[in-house]
């Protein structure tokens, strides 16, 4: 019984670890990418047609891979980075590659919600492009960014569970190893229940924060 509890705790920890770490790294890449997509668009504050087209195409390319296929396709790269294709750290590499373009699009859509007239007002006051990004676009869209971050977290948690098929570690791995291969359905159900619980908590916190920080009433 003790072993079982330990098993769940360990795998829950691994799931959360994989999800949080890969989301963070994915944001380090996806956030600037999303900002660039908005800023360099034809109606952006620094239109750059060629760059915008290239970035857009790259993001679309990566997003069109189903996650499981991506997992296999990039395994040589994964081995290069972390030395293995098994376990949480290997899964993180794949998760980051899959999530960064997805996050870039989410950031893009959040930033697009900012009223263009407010940006124009900031320009009329003599703001530099960097000031507009840092002091207008990001703060004005913070609620939407947070909501989308919660969605990103839950989506990445889902992906991380899928990586269980290739021994990625975490609750998904647990469910597949015990439930699918050894017919211990109870363990599988508990693992799934824990996944659902984590999603609910993340979603709830995101929603609460977004609401609290939004001053538009």
């Amino acid at each position, binding site marked *: 019984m003790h072993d079982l509890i330990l098993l769940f705790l360990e795998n829950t920890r691994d799931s959360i670890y994989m999800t949080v770490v890969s989301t963070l790294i994915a944001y380090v890449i996806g956030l600037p990418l999303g900002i660039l997509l908005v800023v360099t668009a034809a109606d952006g504050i620094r239109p750059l047609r060629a760059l915008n087209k290239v970035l857009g195409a790259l993001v679309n390319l990566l997003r069109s891979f189903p996650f499981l296929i991506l997992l296999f396709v990039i395994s040589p790269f994964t081995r290069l980075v972390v030395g293995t294709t098994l376990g949480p750290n290997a899964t993180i590499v794949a998760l980051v590659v899959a999530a960064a373009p997805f996050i870039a699009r989410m950031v893009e859509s959040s930033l697009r919600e900012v009223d263009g007239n407010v940006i124009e007002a900031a320009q*009329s*006051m*003599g703001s530099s492009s960097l000031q507009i990004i840092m*002091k207008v676009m990001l703060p*004005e869209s*913070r609620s939407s960014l947070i909501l989308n971050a919660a969605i990103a977290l839950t989506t990445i948690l889902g992906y991380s569970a899928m990586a269980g098929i290739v021994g990625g570690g975490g609750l998904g791995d647990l469910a597949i190893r015990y439930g699918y291969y050894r017919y211990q359905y109870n363990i599988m159900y508990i693992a799934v229940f824990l996944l659902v619980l984590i999603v609910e908590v993340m979603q709830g916190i995101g929603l609460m924060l977004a609401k609290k920080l*939004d*001053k*538009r*009433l």
Partner: protein
Amino acid sequence: MAEDIIRVENLHKSFVSHNKSTEVLQGIDLSVKAGEIYGIIGKSGAGKSTLVRCINYLVKPSSGKVLFEGTDLGELGSRELNQVRHQMAMIFQQFNLLMQRNALKNICYPLEITRVPKEQAKQRAMELLKLVGMETRANAYPAELSGGQKQRIAIARALASNPKVLLCDEATSALDPETTKSILELLRDINHKLGITIVVITHEMAVIEELCSKVAIISDGKIAESGDMAQIFMHPQSEAARQLIFPNRKSIPEMRSRRYCRIVFDGRSSFEPVVANMVLDFGQAVNIMFADTRNLDGMAVGQMVIQLPDNPEVALRMIAYLRDKQISVEEVSDHA
């Protein structure tokens, strides 16, 4: 001659959309002197917003020049242009406040971007809140304020960088008449107290009348007429000006068969005695079709449209009679 703070020379602007180019501004010339309240009026789609955005280069002209204190904005890099914009603030119809910042922080924004120390910025913002009569709402978010209050915050924000010019694009068009009046008063106050040059863009004649000493009428991408407000009101030269000053003209019936005259009284004379005496002197009735009085930049000015008798000789003598009394008379029958 006093220095022009803003000069616009032969300004053209075309927009290309769906591979079709439309020339919205077709050779605009303007000069605004320091300290003036300059009105630019025109119908919707005339190109007013485009023009005012060319003045601070939010919109880049297709050709022509914009000079601010003699500096050609077209020759500036983005950094220098931003420096000019610190001296040329703008307010908008939709206020365009930062929704996630409270009133005080909104006013601090232009100070933040010019790296004014925090405490100093806050102090200045409080002073400005007082100036616009909003000192009790420093911590309110825009969503908690009425339209008029939002515009007051926007004005305070515009003034934070100590600009020389304030550009107003339909600043009162989203407000009710009462609030409009109070905002116009505030703008006039700012002009008087701080000596800031104000450029007012509007489609409402009442705004121009209330506020401006100079006016330019923009129609179909060109300046139809510009000059002293009172002069243009009393002696409009262009059809566009007549339509703005006297918009109800079209509603007068049977214009063609009869002679109509628009007569304008400035502060020195008034309607009734002159028209009554004329009727008595001639023994002929005239119909009054329309009359109103307006306050033009502090001076009471009345206008009236009268229908003259059918007899052309009497009508001509009446016109002469009125002109003799130093009253501006203009026949309007041709413009039905």
